[in-house]
Each structure stands twice: as C-alpha cells, then as structure tokens.
C-alpha cells in the first residue's frame, strides 16, 4: 500500500546539513496498522510527512496505492492527498469552525455540494460519537473529543491510508485507550491502512501489527510487533520494551550478586515468557517432578499485546547443579521463551 524506496531528507541550515532521514526503505501492507517508534528527534516526524509529501524527500521515491507521489505535479499531489488522511498530536482543528464544519472542510476543498457534505458528515459524527456536539466549537471540547473530530475529518474523504502523527501523545491514558480502540475499530471496519508514529511503547503494544524502530534518521529494527516486543534485538528497542515491562527484577534479587557461572549452593533464576494458548502444559510442575527440584515463584504478570495475552514468570529453581542444568534444558525444549538471569544465592 505504501512503499518508500531509498528515501532521504536533508535540511540545509547555516550550521551545516542535518540528515533528518537517511536512506530509508519501507513497505507497509494494505490493511495493517504499522507503528513507527522513536525518541524525539529520531526522524519519525519527517518519515511520516514524507508519506504524504508534506516534507518533500531530498532523494528517493514514495509510492502510495501504486502511484508515485514523488513524480507528481502540485495539482496531482493535491488530488492524491485526498486519499491519505492525517491526524495530529495537537489536533489542528479550525477554531473558527464548528465540529460539523471541521469535518466538512476536506469535502468543501473537493468542491462537494451542501447536501452531499451533509450526507457524508452525519455518519462520521455518529462513528466518532459526537452527534450531539455537531454545533460546538473546538474550544468547547475535551482533548479526546477534539481528536475524534480530527479522525472524522481525516476519514471524510474516504482515504485508503490514515497517518497518525503522535495522535495520542497529548491525551491522558484513559482517553488514549479510547482513541486507540476507535482506530482499531475503523482499521477493521473500513480495512484502512494506518501508519502511526509515537514515542509510547504502550501505543504500539496496544494496536500495531508491525513496528519499525527509528533512531538518528535510520530504521534500526523492523518486524512483527509481537516479535519485536518479545525478542528485541537492538539496545534502543530493548529500552522501549523495558519502558512498558512491569516485570522487572524484584529489589531482593537486584541487591544480591548474580553470577553467570554455577557456584556451590547456588539457585538458578530464570524468566519464562509465554503466550496464552502456547503454554497449556503444566511445565513448571513437570520440571519439579522430573528433576526433583524446587521452584520458587518470585513474580509474575500478564500483559496484552494487541489481541494476545503475553505472560511472564520469574522463578528461582533450587537443587543440585546437574538438576538445575537439566531443568534449564527441559524449559528450553518447551514452547516458551526462557531468559536466564543467573545463579543467585
């Protein structure tokens, strides 16, 4: 649906060139929710603006729905942009227009008549549940309501793609959740391709199918959200994952020395991660029975990754060296992810 081929963006400033986006290629499929995560200044804003050419790339090609945006004239580009909706962190609604007229705005630009506009705006008001706010002005709305207007406005021209520029960053956690639910809903209902940039891992975790991590103008990691989340490769990605990981080491384990090597009388601390459905066998109790070890549960939690339940269990296994090693082999052979924290006293 969206394809970036060797896209680059360089800003020339008096203090030298700034490479906001280094040679980047990216493919986003029809109907998926694609997340681009990065810290501020990483280049994610530039990247998403290259998709609708609000930022014209210095080099490379941009394709949306099979058409090359980078080869278009201004007029063709304006037409093509009607297929690409966009919502913003600060909503960017017109303060002098009512909710209804804000949603009607892109349709007015396309030159639609009053009746047709009314026919299109009303179902959108219903979709974002703002029927009773049609005559209100943006300054009379809450942040979440403003973003709903933004979404309705972006959908008014029946776009194939929706770009979300930090769409939930200015909202409180509860409102963020409701906006994300709305986005997921329209993604499924309208089979809309959604691209969202964010610095919040919670957002990615909640709704994205695939994710790219961007740093210093380059994409450093890309893949299925669940893979990236459960098995991050890059240091920055690990930091992002850690930012939403509630299952950190308990204080008692943090303060005790952890050894990579076995020592006399040591116990083995491991973290087990699994998806619901995968871990239907009684693995821990199986291990205890098989090798005569004891397992002490330190902490555990479950987390939701999009529509899958992801569990985490931190256990300390007690027993002789041989039994500990056998237990580890056994765990590794099961359908779960095992992270060895180390040998502890």
């Amino acid at each position, binding site marked *: 649906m969206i394809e970036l081929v060797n896209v680059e963006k360089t800003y020339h400033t008096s203090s030298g060139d700034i490479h906001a986006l280094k040679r980047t290629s990216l493919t986003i499929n029809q109907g998926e929710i694609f997340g681009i995560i990065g810290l501020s200044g990483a280049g994610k804003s530039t990247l998403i603006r290259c998709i*609708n050419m609000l930022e014209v790339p210095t080099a490379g090609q941009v394709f949306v729905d099979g058409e090359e945006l980078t080869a278009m004239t201004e007029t063709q580009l304006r037409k*093509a*942009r*009607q297929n690409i*909706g966009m919502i913003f962190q*600060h909503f960017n609604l*017109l303060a002098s227009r009512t909710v209804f007229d804000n949603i009607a*705005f892109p349709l007015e630009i396309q030159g639609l008549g009053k009746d047709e506009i009314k026919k299109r705006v009303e179902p959108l008001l219903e979709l974002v549940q703002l029927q009773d706010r049609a005559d209100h002005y943006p300054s009379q709305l809450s942040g979440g309501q403003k973003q709903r207007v933004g979404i309705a406005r972006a959908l008014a021209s029946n776009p194939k793609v929706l770009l979300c520029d930090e769409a939930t960053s200015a909202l409180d956690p509860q409102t963020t959740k409701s906006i994300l639910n709305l986005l997921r809903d329209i993604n499924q209902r309208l089979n809309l391709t959604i691209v969202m940039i964010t610095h919040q891992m919670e957002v990615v975790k909640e709704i994205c199918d695939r994710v790219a991590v961007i740093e210093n103008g380059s994409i450093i990691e890309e893949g299925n959200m669940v893979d990236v989340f459960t098995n991050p490769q890059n240091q920055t990605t690990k930091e992002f994952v850690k930012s939403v990981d509630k299952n950190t080491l308990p204080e008692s384990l943090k303060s005790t020395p952890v050894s990579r090597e076995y020592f006399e009388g040591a116990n083995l601390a491991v973290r087990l991660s699994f998806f619901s459905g995968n871990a239907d066998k009684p693995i821990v109790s199986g291990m205890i029975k098989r090798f005569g070890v004891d397992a002490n549960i330190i902490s555990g939690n479950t987390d939701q990754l999009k529509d899958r339940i992801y569990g985490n269990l931190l256990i300390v296994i007690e027993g002789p060296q041989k039994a500990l090693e056998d237990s580890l082999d056994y765990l590794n052979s099961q359908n779960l992810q095992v992270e060895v924290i180390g040998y502890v006293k």
Partner: protein
Amino acid sequence: MSNEMIELLIKSFWETGYMVVASTVLASLIGIPLGIILTVTRNGHILPNTVINSVLGVIVNATRSTPFIILMVAIIPLTRMLVGSSIGTTAAIVPLTISAAPFIARVIESSLLEIDHGVIEAAQSMGASPMQIIYKVLLPEALHSIVLGITLAVIALIGYSAMAGVLGGGGLGDLAIRYGYQRFQPDVMIVTVVILILMVQLIQFIGDTLSKKLNKTKL
C-alpha cells in the same frame, strides 16, 4: 456657541467621517491583499518567495517611516493626478489611504502569522490549494484579530485626518486648530475634542464587540 458655529461643527464632523471611512475602505483594499502576500511569501509559509517578500517589505517600511505631514506634501502630484486637485476633502483621502495601507498590511500580516502552522499543515494534508488555504483557513481563523487591527487603523486615521487641514481637507481637527487655537475660541476646541474622544470610544467599542463575537477560541 452660535448657530453658524454649530453648522460648521456638523460640516466638519461629516468631513472627518467621509475622510476616515473612504480612506479605511481604500486602504483595506490595498492593505489586506498586501498583508496576505507579505505573509504567504515568507520563508516556510505556503508560497515562499524571498524576492517578493523583501521588496514589498522595504516599500511598506519606507512608507510607514515617512512622517504623514511630509508624505502628504510629497505625493501632491499623485493626488492631483488621481482626483484632479491637490486641495480639498477628497484630495486628503489619497495621502490618508497611502499612509494607512502599509499599516493595515502589517496588521493583517501579524494577525495571519498568529495562526498555528499545524492548522495550515492539516489543510495541506487534505489537498487544499494555497488559495483555499488563504480563503478557508487563514482569513477566517484570523478574522477576529483582523477586526481589532482594522479598528486600530480607523482610530489612527482619525488622528491623521486632523492634519488634513494642510491640504484644505477640513474636518474636526482642522476646525479645532483654526477656530479653537488660532481664534482663541476654547469652547470650539473643547467641543471638537470631546466629539473626537466619543468617536474613538465608539469605534473601539464596536471593534471589540465584533471581534469578541467572532473569536471562537475562548468560549
């Protein structure tokens, strides 16, 4: 105060009114498009053009920095060409318009620049053309602030119109100088000044009320 004096006051009032209204309308016709061009041709705006922006900027600044009384005399040939005479109330409208137009242009420019860039970006993302952005985004969003700016220009024009006596333009200011000051008639002076104060108060009140009505950012 004699009947003759009162008639003179009424005549002067209408002269001032005529000069101010006519020059406000004409100066707006020049100043508003000029202010729009000054805004959109800025670097990073919707139609960046450094050459047009700097040339217009220099012209506007030069006109604004010329004292009104000098401008009035300096453009006498132009005034004669446009209205056929260099003296009289109608003749005074030419220098008033020329001095107010760049003022209005700057007022419009600063109002338009107050609009958040994000709103313009949103319109661009929907495929709006620069003209659509000007008519559907910039002007409506800035309207309440533009109204305050024009109010400011009207009041400045009332002040400038007092100097129109130099060109035989008449008006309340001229009356105050000729009768109140030069003929030692303090009652004429006081009455004209009071009328001017009331005019300014009324115009400011109308401007404030209208602007408040148009401003939807604080409801």
